[in-house]
């Protein structure tokens, strides 16, 4: 198994926003879901997950609330806000453009 790919700077935000768009989710679940959806290619470092979550919260793109979890602990659930949804659209579009550009160069070579 190859090493999990480090995330390109800035893409973590996009992944978190995309994941949180599904519904309220705590940090652990977000990390797990990213791992699953990327078929274990993308591994979110705990070291970057929580600062990113807090940064996005400060920017008002996700909101957080405390709620019960399946193991009966209280967990902090994040969900996408209205401005977050706009940001997600913008970042998705940016990402599409970027990845297309990169792959077209890669294919050419």
């Amino acid at each position, binding site marked *: 198994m190859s090493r999990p790919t480090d995330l390109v700077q800035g893409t973590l935000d996009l992944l978190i926003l995309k994941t949180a768009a599904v519904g309220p989710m*705590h*940090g*652990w679940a977000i990390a797990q879901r990213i791992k699953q959806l990327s078929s274990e290619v993308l591994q979110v470092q*705990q*070291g970057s997950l*929580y*600062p*990113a979550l*807090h*940064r996005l*919260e*400060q*920017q*008002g793109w996700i909101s957080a609330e*405390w709620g019960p*979890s399946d*193991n009966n*602990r*209280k*967990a*902090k659930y994040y969900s996408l806000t209205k401005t977050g949804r706009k940001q997600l659209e913008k970042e998705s579009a940016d990402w599409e453009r970027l990845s297309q550009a990169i792959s077209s160069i890669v294919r050419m070579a």
Partner: protein
Amino acid sequence: MLRLRLRSLFRRSAVERELDAEMEFHIAKQVEENRAAGMSEEEASEAARRQFGGRTQRAEECRDARRLSWVGEILQDVRYAVRGMRRDRMLTLVAALSLAICIGANTTIFSIVNTILLRPLPYPAPARLYWIAEILGRGEEVGTGADYYSLRAENRVFEDVAAFDSTTLNWSGAEKSEEIASAMVSPSFFRVLGERPMLGRTLARDEEGSKAPPVVVASYRFWRNRLGSDMHITGKPIRLQGLEYTVIGVMPQGYDYPRGTDLWQPLPLDESSQLPRSERTPFRILRMVARLKAGVGAAQLDSEMARLTRSIRSEYPPAFETTGFLSRMKIFATPLQRRTTGDVRPALLILSGAVGLVLLIACANLANLLLARAASRQRELAVRLALGSARSRIVRQVLTESVAFALPGGALGALAAYVAVAGLNAWQPSLLQNYPAISLDSDTLAFTLGITVLTGLTFGLAPAGAAAGVSIQEALKGSGHTASGGRRTVRLRQVLIAAELGLSLMLLIAAGLLGRSFLKLAHTELGFRPENLLTFNVNLDTNRYPDGASQLRFFREARERIQQLPGVRTAAVATDIPLSGDGPWSGQDVQVEGHAPIPLGHRPLVDKSVVSPEFFRAMDIPLRKGRLFDPSDGLKKEHVILVNESFAHRILPGEDPVGRAIRTDQPGGGVFLQRIVGVVGDTRGSNLGTPPQPLVYGCDCQAESPFLSRMVVVIRTSGDPHSAIRAAEHAIGLLDRDQPVFNVRTMEERLSLSLAPERFHLILIGTFAAIAVVLAALGVYGVMCYLVAQRTREIGIRIALGARSWDVAGLVMKESALLAVAGLLAGLSGSWALTRYLRSLLHGVATGDTATFATMPVLLLVIAAGAALVPALRAARIDPVAAFRED
């Protein structure tokens, strides 16, 4: 979002707890997964923690993400500063007290400046209100009726122009009659100022001219104090000038233009009486205000005024030019606010400057104290630098700290200003009497906050600079308070002290100049004896007393009745008395009979006063030559006059005035002669500061002028003049109860009133100078104490080697003297440059007055020496053994 940020800032502990819980949850989940993968409880937990990594680091990263950065750092600095202030209680107290005084003084002066000069006039769009005046012939600012009509018709920049004139009305109240300040105004007046009446209406368009109906608009003050706050006053009559006037409206509170006006009545001015202009129609002198159209700029206004000047000048018949009337003619507009505050503006600006200097001194003082403190903290700063703190961060912290030191002083200062303003309003210095009460508003508080922070930053600059220059090696190597970096700091402290002394010297010199000016003024040769002299005014209503004969009859009878009263030595009347505070009653062109004729526009203009024959005896004005008036002069055909000495010296130098005559050519071709029969001593003019002017006295027994309705009654009493007030008022009341007596003052009260502005300036600047000197003395004391403490060892060695205590004390004194002399030199040159701004406040004292410039530095030197004496003596008493043991 903002809420979140604020939460991260201020609810730090809650945020931290949540962060902890969140991570705890994550780890718990990880443990769960690990166990599911088959690890034992212990292994699972161990692995989870390993996988998560350093928790503290994670938390720090989250905090960073929450952008606690600069605001958080400042809060951190503030907390640190507060801790420091708690530790250095004495320093905090000194800073708070000295700043409270200085910021309090600055806030007080600012509140005066704000109330009077800055706050807009209480009318709609006040910035568009302009005062219109013209300069004609002799250069006085006036307006004329003819030009008012021309301006209204021809201008393209004003919404409207209004004409008005101040006067007084005799109001017959229920209990007694009173003199009411009133203004005669054109109907446009209310439109120009633009305020709606509180009750009723203002003047209608056709309520002007000589046929205007007898109606008045009352001020809020008059309505409340004299009309019993009658809500249904409109339409009701009040008795003014012996006639019934109808109150048509009441203006709202604060509507006060011209200032002090209680009743507005129609201006009896008709366009047909003024236009077209001719030499035969007398001008109606009046004043004008106008409202600029919205959107008209200053340049446009200026060019329009120039155009109007040209156009209106061309409307005068050419004959006016022969009097020098037209060539110098200029019509101009001044912002109304500037105009209405013109009298106090220079004084207030000077006071602001002076009080600013005091604040600078306080800044220098505190910078000094903080420098001393910074010196003892050099090691701490060096350690922090060594541990990787950025210098910029440390400088910022020092500045934050100094601002934090300033804040309590600012708060106390605002409080002090509150008290001072209340005191000022109670004291009511005559300088500010005509202005609305001084008030502290949000602008003032913003100003206080602003200067507090600025002060903090200013006095923080020196320690911040010192902190930035801390050398890590030297500070860590050095032992405690002998830290180096010191040499530069010591030099800086000495410069600060010298600056303080220099600034205080400037204030001392200003106070000295004002003091000398005050003394000079207070000891002015008055030209008459002010003791036991009672004065009051009576303005006869011209309905009942329409001509000179009836007016004179009234005053003659009044004089005779008062003369009979017990305690009255001499009673007299005059149109004008010294120290009246008013302009001259009348002026007259002088052409001496037998001298070469002088063209009309170039003849000297002298003041003229009409007096009763007893006037000179009542006032104790000496006769220098010739004779005084005689009651029998009334029977003579030839007009006789007296002149004062200034007249004799200036108009008839080297001649004997007695027997000469002033000649006036009359329009019909006749000649009117006024024969000089005597010369009397000079008296002061309408104010103490105005030197005696050439003056002509006419005798009331000969006057045929219909303008003798306004007279001052002068009573020389044998005892306390106050005791004559009631009887004199009663005597006038018996004669005609509708003619009120007002402005009742003894001559000594007038004298004191005439000195009031000077007293006000002197008290304020004197107080500032005193504060400055105390601060500077404290500064000298503090720095010298510090230097002595720092050099304890060195001084100990000197003493051990045989220096006498006298020499040691001398050393300290010498050092202080050097500082003082440097400061004094700077202060002297500063004063030399700046005292000329005081000129408008000085009377009879040059701005470079040698005596003041010579004595004040000596005074300050003595004070500085006194301040240095304690540390000098302390140095002399240093015990060498103890000094060595100390380290």
